[in-house]
């Protein structure tokens, strides 16, 4: 009789606990890896450092698709009634961007680079037009990895 309501409540509870757990774990791993890859310099500027005259250049990139949990989606829906900051989506996008940058850095390190210049971030919603079915976002980070050639 109230089956719909029970399912809704169960999804909310599941989303709340698992979503929170997943986010905490993800942020922890992001912070850890950001510390680890700190020696790799990244620049959003397109100009090369003036003291660098010869380097191997290669395009590197990293992408990630992250979805929001059920609880946060409902919370965001409620928020859109009164307006204001939708903090649940803010953290989703932050996680996605930082993760994409980290994956780009991993790709650059795998190629032996010491810096990445002209880093661009691109965000896209891949499930647009599907209504409220899936709330997820894709972030792609790319840049030119430079490995100096030692004379």
């Amino acid at each position, binding site marked *: 009789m109230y089956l719909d309501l029970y399912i809704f409540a169960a999804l909310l509870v599941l989303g709340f606990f698992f979503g929170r757990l997943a986010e905490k774990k993800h942020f922890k791993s992001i912070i850890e890896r950001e510390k680890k890859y700190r020696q790799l310099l990244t620049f959003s500027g397109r100009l090369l450092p003036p003291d660098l005259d010869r380097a191997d*250049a290669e395009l590197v990139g990293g*992408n990630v698709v*992250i*979805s929001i*949990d059920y609880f946060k989606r409902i919370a965001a829906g409620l928020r859109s009634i009164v307006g204001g900051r939708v903090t649940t989506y803010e953290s989703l996008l932050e996680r996605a961007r930082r993760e994409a940058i980290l994956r780009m850095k991993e790709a650059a390190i795998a190629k032996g680079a010491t810096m990445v210049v002209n880093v661009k971030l691109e965000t896209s919603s891949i*499930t*647009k*037009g599907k209504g409220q*079915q*899936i709330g997820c976002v894709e972030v792609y980070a790319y840049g030119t990895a430079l490995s100096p050639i030692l004379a």
Partner: protein
Amino acid sequence: MLVTNIETIPGKRVTTHLGMVQGNTVRAKHVGRDIMAGLKNVFGGELVGYTELLQESREEATARMVQQANEIGANAVVNVRYSTSSVTAGAAELFAYGTAVIVE
């Protein structure tokens, strides 16, 4: 083939500009992935299937761009940009473009 997203190839001089080259691909997700994504949507977290799909598509778009550059005799593509657009529900278009050049 050298590919960068800055205007030059460091340490090399661009001798000839050959104009813009581009590559695109439109990919749809298969139903299995959609269902898995729908389930994952309850708990939140990374949608690995979609991540892989988009990465593969981007590589293909880049490969097509590089092939086009090869055909016109370039040996490098500079100033590469990526762009994504959703043409219809359930499919995404990945687009890569850049300037084909000859470097010495």
